[in-house]
């Protein structure tokens, strides 16, 4: 079976534009790990250092690297997991999560264009790629704000009124949990205990901890970060 389709050049060019050379090279390497020995086009075996560390994921090993590490280089080992007459597809699918990790590490989230490019390049159906990306909590499908607000909704914070703080945040920002404000500055997330119950109710903005927050303080806190954001210029997805 041929590895490419007649529009392969176009697929690669689009992928490089959407995902960047680095991610495309990474996907090539992932494909190389499950490539069959008789492959003659050389794609997948080529390209760069074996693993590019993730700059954006702090304090944890590169998840994409971890996910592909230990995969057999020899083909065949994975083929036993294959279903219904399309073994090469299952082999490529086995690389999907690692690739999505890599894309999110690069861009901070997974846009539809990213997912489509991954689908075309890995030749895994777009519905499958989108299904996987939307299933896992770790994967984010919309850009993150410059500052991620984590409101603790753990028991201690909750009894101290975290729900009212959360509601105030939602009202002020006009967004729900998991969403990002239209100006791209704030993303609102719920956390389940930040381990500082003595400071309840607590919220974090980026790495800053705000203790004993009352709903009244919310506008002041937000304004602080808004002005910080204005000083630094337009917000970009942080990737964090």
């Amino acid at each position: 079976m041929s590895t490419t389709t007649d529009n392969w050049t176009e697929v690669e060019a689009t992928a490089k534009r959407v995902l960047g050379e680095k991610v495309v090279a990474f996907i090539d390497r992932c494909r190389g790990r499950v490539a069959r020995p008789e492959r003659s086009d050389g794609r997948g075996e080529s390209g760069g250092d074996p693993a590019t560390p993730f700059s954006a994921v702090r304090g944890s090993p590169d998840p994409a690297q971890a996910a592909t590490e230990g995969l057999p280089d020899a083909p065949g080992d994975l083929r036993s997991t294959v279903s219904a007459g399309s073994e090469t597809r299952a082999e490529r699918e086995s690389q999907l999560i690692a690739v999505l990790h890599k894309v999110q590490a690069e861009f901070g989230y997974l846009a539809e264009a990213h997912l489509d490019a991954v689908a075309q390049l890995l030749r895994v159906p777009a519905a499958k790629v989108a299904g996987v990306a939307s299933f896992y909590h770790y994967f984010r499908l919309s850009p993150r704000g410059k500052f991620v607000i984590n409101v603790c909704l753990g028991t201690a914070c909750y009894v101290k009124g975290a729900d009212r703080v959360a509601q105030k945040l939602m009202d002020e920002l006009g967004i729900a949990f998991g969403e990002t404000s239209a100006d791209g500055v704030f993303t609102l997330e719920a956390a389940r205990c930040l381990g500082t119950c003595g400071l309840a109710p607590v919220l974090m903005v980026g790495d800053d901890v705000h203790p004993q927050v009352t709903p009244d303080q919310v506008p002041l806190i937000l304004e602080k970060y808004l002005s910080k954001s204005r000083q630094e210029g337009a917000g970009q997805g942080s990737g964090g």
Partner: protein
Amino acid sequence: MAKKKKVNLTIDGIKLAVPEGTTVMHAAEKLGIHIPRLCYHPDLSLAGSCRVCIVDVKGMGYFMASCSVNVWEGMEVQTNSPEIRQARRDIVELLVDNHPMDCQTCERDGNCELQNLAYSLGVRERLWEGRRKRFPLEDSSHSVVRNAEKCILCGRCVRVCAEIQGVYNLSQHGRGFTTVVAPAHGAAMDDSVCIQCGQCINVCPTAAFLEKSSTEDVWKALADPNKHVVVQTAPSIRAAIGEGFGLSPGTPMTGKMVAALRVLGFDAVFDTDFGADLTIVEEAHEFLSRLQGHEPLPMITSCSPGWISFMEKFYPELIPHASTCKSPMSMLSVLAKTYYAQKKGLDPSQIYVVAVMPCVAKKYESRRPEHFMADGVPYTDAVLTTRELIWMIKCYGITIATLPDGQFDDPLGTASGAGDIFGTTGGVMEATLRAASELVTGRPADRLEFTEVRAVEGLRETYVAIGDQNIHVGVANGLQNAKILLDKVVSGQEKFHVIEVMACPGGCIGGGGQPYPPEGVKVLDPGLLRKRASALYAIDSDKALRKSYENPAIDELYDTFLGGPGSETAHQLLHTHYHAKTPRGIR
């Protein structure tokens, strides 16, 4: 094949021995016990997700899904007990609690698997009137309507789309309460790689997938005194429509179907088989021209709109290979508004053409711009599926079984047996071979039946001698099967002369618009498809006229209107071209 080892077990206290690798579900069937099931489908991969088919296996401590557990030596299975029945009922109760309570107004009322299951398991009340999933109705496509509120996430549509059709358009998105079956990114069906074949409708146990209904438009046209409403019926309708009225599959219904259509009020009843004969004559000429090197070989048939859509999205490089002949439906519709209009002295705008098709993709085909008249009105005004026609007949109150047989109307009603077999996989090929053989050799074919291209299995390759040429033919139904042939064409691995592709399993007889089979029979069941196919073969062999070429009505059409096969008028009216479409599918 080596004989499999037998495994001894007991089910409900009865000892039996079954081959190693048999599932508990199938072992129980040998004892006449049909364990209730929902997500299971014999022709699709195992999902094991609905848990309705649970049984108690001694020593396991939990109920096991019988569809996905193989028997083992000494296994003791209990398929029924108060606890199991309670557990199954709980499962279905929870499904029903999160399902719209509109059975009486639902299109699947009476043939809904969830409804039947809820009844047979004793679900008599809704216990949890809690939050329910809410999704908008998605009806962007001309063919398939998706109603995610009715979806119970059994995943059959996802599996049929991937495993049988190789399209992989559907997937479950999200998780938990908000999980939804949809194309990538929740795109509208019309913006997806959907090829509109409608197999998702066929396998859906509820009304989460349905055809886009055209019955209202047709009723309205029938009631309009200024409209001359004509109808055409595809070959496979006559082989399946009886099932909608409790008759056994494979009952030929040609005459009664025609009679019922007259009662419904159609001004003329035409036979799509006539269009099929015409397609064959045109296609045989095209094939000859390709054989002489004018256009590329292999020629691939183009009657199946699901296949055409698949080609445009997944194999655009094969477009030059697709026969330029319009489908029998589109040819007949064109003639109804030109040739027939002229004969009748009617203005084309007065004529309303209804096509009854086993297919939902035909709805889409009828709305493709290349099948529009110059004034922007489609040649085929409305397409009804077999199911929609059955419903209209019931709605009107016609007792079809008692009607005297009717006859199709001239000039588009006479057809050869070659036209009838168009409805089954291999039929277009056989009809082409009957014609091409004569065209190539210049003398009558020495045989009429090309049984080597028959059979409902998905894939056949063979050589057929025509004159001194050995013609390499391929036949595929179900697009996952077709891919195997198409990949060989693309890679140049094999040189075919002609390939027939029908998108649906078994061909049109297994189309996305065919009747839901009776309870206990699954849609893709080869036995069911074989019965429908044999009805068509019987109709063919009972006819005196069996070759498209010998159809006198076709002769008259060419003599008085078209001016000969492959003529300029024929090309203008009966041929078309295809174009690559987006989004591009991944094959």
